[in-house]
């Protein structure tokens, strides 16, 4: 297990926190919290095996949030001085005072146990920032070369993002913690041009809460996937165009994670259900009055929220309100049974939610932003005795097996969605029958999940995810994982995207 980075521990975190929190108290704040965050990020891009860009960034800053006269106030800055910390506390209180006339609700927070000077570190082996740049570039050049040498591959692009995040949090209730997380997001794409058509094939390795070991084979078999991509791409370019219609679908976890993210993950965020995102990302059809009764999907549907999953991108010890990571049900036996909440929403809706405690879903993407209600790792649970992907395919007479994610879109209440993918295999009489192209699937959330006939067993389960989930105003980018097995859906609408383009 790695240690908390010594250079972060050397920063004057307690001193700055004490100064800010004391100033907030002196100014009459009923509650105040302080964050000091350092986010190191590295982005390496290769184009046709040549290093195109390599950038090493660090975002270091501090933030103070207060409740003053029942109103939030927030301020963030970058200078690591007591004067700055005190100034931010004053600015946050001032923001609350300016905002008070347009605040119609007194802010109250759900109780949470006090955690006194605790630490938490995510599960990874090799801090990417300890690996020499040249070593990383050499590995990625090798991966690029393997694809470029393959027949039919015209160009190869490689992007790897790595993030090392350290955070110190303290609040006036007495909680303080130091937390360190590492995540990595690789994307390797082969491009081909054939006659008047072009296409691409991207690796399906999801971003993960892992270190550099992920790029060398721990948690993903790069040798296998890189060897297969050129053949997959060539087959896709030569594949027949899909005939639009209704098909049974077997969806691989590499595609289904994104459908879960959009149609369940965001839909079960309570801030959306309550209207707090209405002007931007939208609300949710899964409104609070339907808790316990909304038939979300078929009876085999079991979806959990989880901030504790190993290697999860949304996995933490504690959130940005000092709440410990937890796991809970969102959809059980096909019924909506839970939400993702923060401390304010938990307090305000405790009677309906049936619990007085936040489930730890508040965080910001950096010290420069205010914590908002954010997504846990939201995952579809496998059937403990469930079938393999091949067995699911074997149950389909006329269908499509979809692998990998690509295009995604859903409406602002999470009803109508459309997704594409990396590869689409025709299923004929229970067997794969070559690739198809120009495929998109379109459905309404509850119809789609209601059509889920079977979920695969634990042997099909993969933890997918994204580094760049957008939400809130001002916009924030979040990282979140979604685990799922392969699953079988009956009677889903398939579009031909070439026809949709009027060609």
């Amino acid at each position, binding site marked *: 297990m790695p240690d908390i980075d010594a250079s972060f521990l050397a920063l004057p975190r307690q001193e700055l926190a004490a100064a800010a929190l004391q100033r907030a108290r002196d100014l009459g704040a009923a509650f105040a919290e302080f964050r000091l965050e350092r986010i190191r990020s590295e982005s390496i891009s290769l184009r046709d095996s040549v290093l195109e860009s390599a950038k090493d960034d660090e975002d270091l800053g501090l933030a103070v949030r207060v409740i003053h006269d029942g109103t939030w106030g927030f301020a963030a800055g970058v200078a690591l001085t007591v004067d700055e910390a005190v100034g931010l506390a004053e600015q946050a209180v001032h923001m609350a005072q300016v905002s008070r006339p347009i605040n119609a609700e007194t802010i109250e927070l759900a109780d949470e146990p006090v955690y006194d000077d605790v630490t938490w570190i995510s599960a990874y082996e090799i801090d990417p920032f300890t690996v020499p740049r040249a070593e990383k570039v050499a590995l990625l050049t090798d991966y690029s070369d393997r694809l470029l040498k393959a027949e039919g591959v015209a160009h190869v692009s490689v992007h790897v993002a790595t993030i090392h995040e350290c955070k110190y949090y303290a609040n006036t209730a007495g909680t303080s913690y130091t937390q360190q997380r590492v995540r990595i997001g690789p994307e390797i794409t082969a491009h081909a041009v054939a006659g*008047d058509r072009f296409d691409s094939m991207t690796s399906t390795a999801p971003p993960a809460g892992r270190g550099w070991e992920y790029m060398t084979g721990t948690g993903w078999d790069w040798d296998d996937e890189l060897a297969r991509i050129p053949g997959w791409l060539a087959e896709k370019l030569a594949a027949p165009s899909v005939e639009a219609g209704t098909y049974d679908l077997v969806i691989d976890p590499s595609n289904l994670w994104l459908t879960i993210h959009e149609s369940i993950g965001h839909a079960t965020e309570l801030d959306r259900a309550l209207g707090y995102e209405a*002007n931007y990302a939208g609300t949710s059809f899964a409104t609070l009055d339907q808790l316990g009764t909304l038939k979300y999907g078929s009876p085999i549907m079991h979806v959990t929220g989880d901030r504790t999953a190993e290697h999860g991108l949304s996995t933490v010890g504690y959130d940005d309100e000092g709440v410990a990571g937890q796991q809970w049900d969102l959809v059980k036996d096909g019924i909506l049974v839970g939400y993702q909440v923060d401390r304010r929403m938990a307090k305000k809706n405790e009677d309906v939610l049936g619990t007085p405690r936040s489930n730890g879903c508040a965080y910001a993407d950096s010290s420069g932003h*205010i914590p908002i209600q954010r997504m846990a790792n939201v995952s579809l649970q496998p059937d403990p005795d469930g079938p393999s992907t091949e067995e699911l395919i074997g149950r389909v007479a006329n269908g499509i097996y979809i692998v990998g994610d690509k295009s995604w*879109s859903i409406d*602002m209440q999470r009803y109508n969605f459309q997704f594409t993918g990396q590869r689409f295999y025709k299923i004929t009489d229970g067997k794969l029958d070559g690739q198809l192209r120009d495929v998109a699937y379109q459905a309404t959330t509850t119809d789609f999940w209601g059509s889920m006939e079977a979920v695969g067993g634990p042997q099909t389960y993969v933890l997918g995810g994204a580094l760049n989930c957008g939400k809130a105003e001002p916009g924030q980018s979040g990282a979140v994982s979604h685990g799922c097995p392969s699953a079988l859906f009956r009677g889903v609408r398939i579009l031909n995207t070439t026809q949709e383009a009027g060609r």
Partner: protein
Amino acid sequence: MTAVQLTPQDTVERGLALAAAEGADGCVVLVAETSSTNLRWANNTLTTNGAMRGSSVTVIATVGAGEGTAAGVVGRSSVTEDSLREIVAAAVATARASAPAEDARPLVDGTTGADWDLEPELTSVAVYEKFAPSLGESLRQATDEKRRLYGFANHEVATLYVGSSTGLRLRQALPRGYVSSTGKNADLSHSAWVGTATRDFTDVDPLALDTELTRRLGWASRTVSVDAGRHPTVLPPAAVADLMTYLFWQLDGRDAFEGQTVFSKTGGGTRIGDTLSSQPVNLHSDPALAGLEAFAFAVARSSGGSSSVFDNGLQLAATDWIRGGRLEHLMTSRYTADLIGVPTATPDIENYVLSVDGATGSTDDLVAGLDHGLLLTCLWYIRVVDPQTLLLTGLTRDGVYLVENGEVTGAVNNFRFNESPVDLLARFTAAGATVPSYSREWGDYFSRTATPPLLIPDYNMSSVSQAS
């Protein structure tokens, strides 16, 4: 604590001196000082607010590497006199450990700009001095009238300093603001949206915005179900910007040259010179556009298809991307311009104007000329489905209206669409005058746009969305 905070000018000068002392052949130092302040509301009450200050320094060091030049790029926030030394050393060491950069070119020459010595410009919550009380009044009014308001106001100022070992000293400060407001009726069955960009909030009246929301919600007193299909549709400027921003982002010269975008020519090369539309449609960028001012020089913290860290400080010139329906230019760095064989580099500019020669009138005028069709408000969750055609999917949002005999006669359901903005430029049958627009999907990120309303005779509504 003894950490010494430097002025932006000192950061640049000391950074360049440290790079020279480390043996770098060249260096560019970028300093960005930012401040922002925002108010957010929902359900007729404030939900969050904030005042943020940011400061970042990016050091780009170059060294000779074999037959070429290598670059090392290191960025940090919260830079002090001590940490600047570490940043510069890291950038130089990274450059030394790197192979020659493909896009290497001599650093841009220049002199000291007249405003170089000025301090960063800042914003504060004071920008809402008039706006906030008026917003409070509109929230109270909405509560009294059993409507609900949700919205966001943001103001930010970015001051950028660019200094190079070749003598360049450039500074520019840019304010940017916008407000976006959604109204819903009492049972939340209908919504309406208005949004606008501003430089200082003196020209934004929340009560006037609320009046427009109320007018639009009134159109929903009659509701009509309309099936999916291809419908004559008026796209207001905000919706046109929702779509054209995607076209703008596809103007990458290298991606097109390598056969990966809608602007790639079959058989190789780009479609520069091709006629995209028989209509006299133009897509133009100019950093000096009044009201849409953008940075007047190239800023690149990393290299990509149309940008290069070696081009930092390159003066940006007014550029026609599309002129008279013909594709004139794609975005290029100096390297990419050479690669694809165009005479001059045409870097990205952070604004655009879409216009149609001779087009006059407003969205309402296009509606008045429509016998039967749809009027949109804005679009949402737009994503590329097929890069070859630039087929986009997305949804209508916050108000789709039925037009009959030139008048709005009711509200209809939302739709999912599948359409290509390149095709739309070839298919529109009427256009209005170009006006400043604020797009729903990307306006918070890319707000410096001006677009006309367009009438599309056969907009592809792929399916109905139940969202309201």
